[in-house]
C-alpha cells in the first residue's frame, strides 16, 4: 500500500475513534438541522408583521375572499397586509425590501375561479353565490332554465389558467412561502364554494326543472346533466395557479438552506480540527518519528490532508443522507456530489493554512474556531446570505462557507451540474490559493 494511503487511513481511523470529533462532525449538525426543521417546518416560526402588499386587478367578487384571508384574525399578527393600486410602485417597494411580497390578483380572477357565477351575474343580474336551494326554487322557471344553460356553457374547460403572482423579495424568503400557503388555502376554500354552487344548481334540476322526458326546454340542457356535466364542474380543479416570482427567480426553503450551510459550518470545524492534528503530532513527537522514517515530507503532508479530505467527505455525505431523511433538499445528486467534493477540498485548504502558520495546537484551535465562526457568520450561515450588505457578501467569498452557500442555493433552485460549474471553478481557485499559502508556511516551518 502506498505510504500516502497508509497515512490517510491512519488519519481517518484516528478521527473516527475520537468521540469529541464525531460529536462535532455529525451529532451537532444533525441535532441543529432537526431543531431548525422543527422550528420552521410549519413555515411560520419566528415571523410577525410581515409587510405584504395586495394589488387587486380583479373586477369580480371572488378576489375579496383572498383579501379577507390575508387580513383574517388568525394571521393578524403574522401579516401586515396593505391594499395597493400602483403595480410599478408596489414592485419597487418589494425590490427595495420595504415589503416582503406583493400578491397580484389578476384581471378575470373571479370569472375563472367560478366562471358560471360571473356569467349568471352578467346575463341575469343574479348573484348565484347568495342563492340557497329554496330561493333558487322560487325563481321563475325561465330564469332557472337560463341558469342551467349558462352553467352548461361555462363548463367548457378554459385553455389557460390565471396566475396569482406572489412577487417576493429574496430577502424575505420564508415569508413568501407563508403567503403562498395562505393564498393557496383561500383558493381551496373557493373551490369548495364552486362546488357548493354546483350542488345548488343540481338541486334546481332535481326538484323543478324539466327532465329530458318533460319537454323541449329541458332537453336543451339536461343531456349535460346526464353526461355528468355538473359533476365535472364540481371536480374541476380551479383554473388558478399561484406562483412565487422573485427578482432573482429563486425558490427558497429555510430547511434546505440551513441543512447545507450547517453542514459546511461543521465541515469547517472538522477540517480545522484535522489540520490541528499536524501540530498535535509535532508536539507529541509522532511527526518527528514520521520524519525520520524513510518517508518524504511531502507524502506525510499529502497523507495528512488526504485523510482530512476523506473524513470530510464521509461527514458531509452522512449529513446529506440524514438531513434528506428529515425533509431537506440539497439539489440534483450529480451536482451535489461534485459540490461536496469541491467544498471539502476547499475547506481542507483552510485546515492546511491554519496548521501551516499557527505556532502550536492551542493557537491553531483558537484560530480555527474563530475562522470557522466568523467565516460562517459573514457568509450567511445563520440567516439568509442575501440579507447581508453587498460588500460583506463579496468579502465573504474568501471563505468556503460563502461558496458553499452559493453553490447549494443554485442547486436547490434547480440548477444542475453544468449550471454550477463557474461556482465550482471559483471555489477550486480559492482552494489553490489556500494551499499555495499553506505550502509557503510549511516550507518555513519544516525547512
Amino acid at each position, binding site marked *: 500500500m502506498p505510504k500516502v494511503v497508509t497515512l490517510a487511513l491512519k488519519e481517518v481511523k484516528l478521527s473516527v475513534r475520537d468521540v469529541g470529533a464525531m460529536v462535532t462532525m455529525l451529532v451537532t449538525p444533525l441535532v441543529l438541522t432537526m431543531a431548525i426543521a422543527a422550528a420552521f417546518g410549519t413555515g411560520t416560526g419566528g415571523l410577525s408583521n410581515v409587510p405584504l402588499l395586495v394589488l387587486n386587478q380583479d373586477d369580480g367578487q371572488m378576489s375579496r375572499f383572498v383579501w379577507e384571508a390575508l387580513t383574517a384574525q388568525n394571521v393578524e399578527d403574522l401579516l401586515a397586509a396593505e391594499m395597493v393600486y400602483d403595480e410599478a410602485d408596489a414592485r419597487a417597494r418589494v425590490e427595495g425590501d420595504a415589503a416582503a411580497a406583493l400578491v397580484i390578483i389578476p384581471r378575470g380572477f373571479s370569472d375563472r375561479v367560478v366562471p358560471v357565477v360571473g356569467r349568471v351575474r352578467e346575463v341575469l343580474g343574479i348573484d348565484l353565490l347568495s342563492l340557497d336551494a329554496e330561493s333558487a326554487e322560487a325563481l321563475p322557471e325561465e330564469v332557472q332554465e337560463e341558469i342551467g344553460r349558462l352553467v352548461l356553457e361555462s363548463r367548457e374547460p378554459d385553455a389557460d389558467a390565471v396566475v396569482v403572482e406572489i412577487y417576493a423579495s429574496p430577502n424575505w424568503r420564508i415569508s413568501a412561502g407563508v403567503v403562498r400557503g395562505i393564498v393557496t388555502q383561500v383558493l381551496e376554500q373557493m373551490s369548495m364554494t364552486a362546488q357548493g354552487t354546483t350542488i345548488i344548481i343540481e338541486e334546481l334540476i332535481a326538484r323543478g326543472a324539466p327532465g329530458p322526458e318533460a319537454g323541449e326546454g329541458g332537453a336543451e340542457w339536461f343531456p349535460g346533466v346526464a353526461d355528468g356535466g355538473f359533476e365535472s364542474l364540481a371536480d374541476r380543479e380551479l383554473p388558478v395557479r399561484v406562483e412565487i416570482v422573485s427578482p432573482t427567480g429563486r425558490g427558497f426553503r429555510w430547511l434546505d438552506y440551513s441543512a447545507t450551510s450547517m453542514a459546511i459550518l461543521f465541515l469547517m470545524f472538522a477540517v480545522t480540527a484535522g489540520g490541528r492534528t499536524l501540530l498535535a503530532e509535532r508536539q507529541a513527537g509522532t511527526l518527528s518519528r514520521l520524519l525520520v*522514517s524513510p518517508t518524504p515530507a511531502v507524502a506525510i503532508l499529502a497523507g495528512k490532508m488526504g485523510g482530512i479530505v476523506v473524513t470530510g467527505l464521509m461527514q458531509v455525505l452522512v449529513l446529506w443522507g440524514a438531513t434528506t431523511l428529515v425533509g431537506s433538499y440539497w439539489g440534483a445528486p450529480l451536482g451535489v456530489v461534485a459540490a461536496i467534493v469541491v467544498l471539502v477540498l476547499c475547506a481542507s485548504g483552510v485546515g492546511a493554512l491554519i496548521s501551516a502558520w499557527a505556532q502550536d495546537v492551542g493557537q491553531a484551535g483558537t484560530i480555527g474556531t474563530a475562522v470557522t465562526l466568523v467565516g460562517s457568520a459573514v457568509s450567511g450561515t445563520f440567516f439568509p446570505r442575501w440579507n447581508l450588505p453587498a460588500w460583506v457578501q463579496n468579502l465573504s467569498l474568501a471563505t468556503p462557507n460563502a461558496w458553499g452557500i452559493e453553490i447549494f442555493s443554485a442547486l436547490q433552485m434547480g440548477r444542475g451540474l453544468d449550471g454550477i460549474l463557474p461556482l465550482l471553478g471559483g471555489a477550486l481557485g480559492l482552494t489553490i490559493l489556500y494551499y499555495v499559502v499553506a505550502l509557503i508556511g510549511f516550507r518555513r516551518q519544516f525547512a
Partner: protein
Amino acid sequence: MSLVEARNLVKRYTADGPKAVDNVSFEIRDGEIFSLLGPNGAGKTTTISMLSTLIRPTAGTALVNGYDIRTEPMAVRRSIGVVPQDLALYGKLSGRENLRFWGEMRGLGGPALWEEIDEKLALMDLTDRAGDRAETYSGGMKRRLNLAIGMLGNPPLMMLDEPTVGIDPQSRRHILDYVRELNRAGAGTLYTTHYMEEAQELSDRIGIIDRGTLIALGTLQELTQMVGEHEMLRLQLYQPEAGQALVDGVRGLEGMHQASAADGEVVLSVAAVETTLPQVLTKAADLGLSIRNVEIREPNLETVFLHLTGRALRD
C-alpha cells in the same frame, strides 16, 4: 566500515544562539554499543537528531552506515531504527495497529511484517494487550511499545534516546536486557542516557558529553583510569541545604581533588580516603553539620564526570 562517523558536528538552534552541540566527533564501530552519557541539556538528543537526519547540523557532518547525513538522508533513514526520548505513539491506535502503521512507514509490509509484529509483541511482553489502545497502557508498557516500533525491520544501527526514562525497575530491566540481546544478534547501538549505571552496564565504549562538548571518550576502563588514584566520597547531611557550605569549607584540604553539592548530597573526589575523610568530618563538625551517611566508592563514571567537570552528573 564503522556504523557512525561523526565529524565536528555543530548545532546552533538559532543563528546567534549558543551551540547545543559543539564540535562533536566520534565513531561507532560495527556491532558496538556506544553510549552518550551526559546530564540534562548536554546535547544528547540534539546529536541523535542530527545523526537521524531530523535536523541539519550547523556545521560538520557524519556518515551513518556509510551514508552522508547531509546529502543522503533517505538512505540514512532506511538504515537506522530510532527510538525517540519522548514517546511517539498514537494513543487511539492499539499496540498492534501502531506497530503495523510504523512498520508500513518503514516500507515493510505483508506476511513478513505481521510475523515480525507478533514476535516484537512477545519480546516486549505486550501480546496480551496488543489489541488495546495504546492510551490505556501503563508508562512502562508505552516505553516498551515505543522501543518495539524503533526496532521494526531489525536495522543494523539503532539509536535509542534515553529509552528508560521515568519507568519502573522491571520495565527498565526488560529494556536493558533487550538492548543487549539485540546487540548479540549483531545490531550496533547508539544509546544515550544520564544514568551512569546504564552506561556502565551496557556499553562497549562511552562518550561523556557536557554542555555540547564531548569531554571524554573510551571504554569504561579507559575512562576510570583518567581519574587516576582518586576515590569518591559521597556524604549525606542532616542539613541538605548546607551542602554548598561544606563544599566551600573542604575545598582547600590536602588531597581534595574535586568537591560538589547536589540533591542534598556532597560528592568529593579525593586522593586517599583514609587521610581526607577525618578532616572532612572535623570540618563538618566545625560548621555545626551532622552527617547522616558516608559512602566510599571505587572510581566510576560519576567520579570521572566529577573529575572532568567539577560537577556531579545529576545537576
